[in-house]
């Protein structure tokens, strides 16, 4: 079978293939160096960082559930500065071989702006930034910042002023079509989704959550069919590129996202249990594209028949 051109453009972020990593499941790339060729990926997205370091939530922070896991890491991060000190050299070198995407975390519009401004200054090697607008918004009563079109577009509008580099906006699994349109309108260059789905797991013997908080985020194969549907909704709602995320374990799972219209995909939990999963997904995705007889992966984008 002949080679398929796998290169794509995620809203100005050049990707030599569509496979990206889901924030928070891939450390800052370096952790995988011994176990796979990180530079072979289309992009690498690191853990979300804020202007100031965050401690995140107390233990326990994870619990396994049927075909997935719950996490309540709570966006623990060393802060943009701390991250750059520790991983800057590695990521700068990596950026010569693949696109490095830095994720921005915040609890308020100002925090997003501050973190992004720091990134813009300290990470000249970043190909673009991802705004994680699904973290708890302390300044607005604990609801997720990205859970309303108004909240989401406010963050994006303000962040848009801060950098000229591409902005990917990562959506929560809620009210997807409305919020996707709102963030495109506000200046996003691309959208990624889904973040984890809020969920619960209770130890019925002790009557307590298995985690340190009542709710936590569900990821893994359990959420895949829901994630594909939401990605389809997003692709139908916007004209900017979309990166599909949720329960990708195989190239076929990734292919579903491409078929509903996604430009790229991110591998999440799979990398935690099989470190080189993203590379396998990439290989399988390429094989599928070949089997479909196309010369460019973009011919399959949105090629879902319905």
């Amino acid at each position, binding site marked *: 079978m002949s080679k398929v051109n796998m290169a794509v453009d995620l809203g100005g972020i050049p990707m030599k293939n569509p496979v990206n990593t889901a924030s928070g499941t891939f*450390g800052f790339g370096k*952790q995988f160096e*011994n*176990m796979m060729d990180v530079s072979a990926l289309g992009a690498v997205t690191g*853990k979300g960082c804020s202007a100031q370091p965050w401690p995140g939530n107390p233990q326990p922070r994870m619990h*396994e559930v049927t075909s997935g896991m719950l996490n309540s890491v709570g966006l623990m991060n060393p802060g943009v500065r701390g991250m750059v000190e520790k991983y800057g050299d590695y990521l700068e070198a990596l950026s010569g071989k693949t696109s490095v995407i830095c994720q921005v975390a915040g609890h308020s519009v100002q925090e997003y702006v501050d973190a992004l401004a720091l990134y813009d200054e300290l990470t000249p090697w970043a190909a673009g930034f991802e705004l994680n607008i699904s973290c708890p918004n302390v300044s607005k009563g604990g609801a997720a910042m990205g859970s309303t079109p108004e909240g989401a577009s406010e963050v994006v509008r303000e962040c848009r002023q801060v950098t000229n580099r591409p902005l990917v906006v990562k959506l929560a699994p809620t009210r997807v079509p409305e919020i996707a349109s709102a963030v495109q309108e506000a200046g996003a260059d691309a959208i990624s989704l889904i973040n984890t789905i809020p969920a619960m797991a209770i130890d019925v013997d002790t009557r307590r959550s298995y985690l340190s908080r009542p709710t936590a985020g569900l990821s893994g194969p359990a959420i895949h069919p829901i994630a594909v549907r939401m990605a389809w909704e997003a692709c139908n709602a916007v004209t900017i590129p979309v990166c599909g995320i949720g329960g990708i374990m195989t190239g076929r799972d990734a292919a579903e996202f491409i078929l509903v219209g996604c430009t790229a995909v991110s591998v999440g939990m799979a*990398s*935690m249990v099989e*470190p080189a999963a993203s590379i396998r997904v990439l290989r399988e995705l390429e094989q599928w594209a070949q089997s479909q007889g196309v010369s460019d992966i973009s011919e399959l984008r949105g090629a879902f028949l319905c």
Partner: protein
Amino acid sequence: MSAPSNARVLPVTILGSEPLAPGFMRTSLACPDLACQIQPGQFFNISVPGDARELLRIPMSYVGADPSQGTVEIAFRIVGNGTRRLAGLPTGTRTDLIGPLGHGWRYPEGMRRALIVGGGSGVAPVMALAGRLARMDVEFHVVQGARTSREVIYENEIRALGAARFEVTTDDGSRGTKGFPTAVVGGLVASECYDQVYACGPQPMMRGIAELCRKAGVPCMVSLETGMGCGFGACATCAIDTVNGKRGVCVDGPVFDAEEVIW
């Protein structure tokens, strides 16, 4: 968190399992690449086949490794689905693990006498340590805490390694001192001159021992346990509070100086 240096996905074959005590298993694994690298206190993250709904690996310390045979022995308590499946894997089962992971026990220079405290399944991670101290010609005492006399494990092995003192505590008093290991460790750290105390077991036990050591002015190291999503620094699910901020049990630990841990 610092990146692991030599962790890899390694193939492994189950060589056999046998009960060690009620609800406790010892299992022998063939994994030459691990056997020749793993250090006391390090662990690995093993994939346990048999239930495709459960994706996460299980973190395991080791009891002993034989680099010449390429084998590693583990001991574990059956506490949930994963350990139940692990206990039932037939000889010859092939799977894989990620390892070696984490930082192991450290040995202060000039150490001459150490106390090792193992509670419950925490005995496993200190067995390899005892072996190492024996080879280093460090005198060591062992306190083992068990729920009941039948759950005292590896007694012969500990004696054979040359433990200069071996104390047992049981929750129900069916053997040795009744109570938790803390019941005897207080006296020991006061009367014996330990250069180092090593402890692994339930969190309250380790906290208690850390407190006793702090009071006695004896350095103490503990091996901590948390749920782990990845085991190699990728996910931050294992982070705990320390005086140096959050640290990852998988890559910064599992062994920590007790003084560093905020209990």
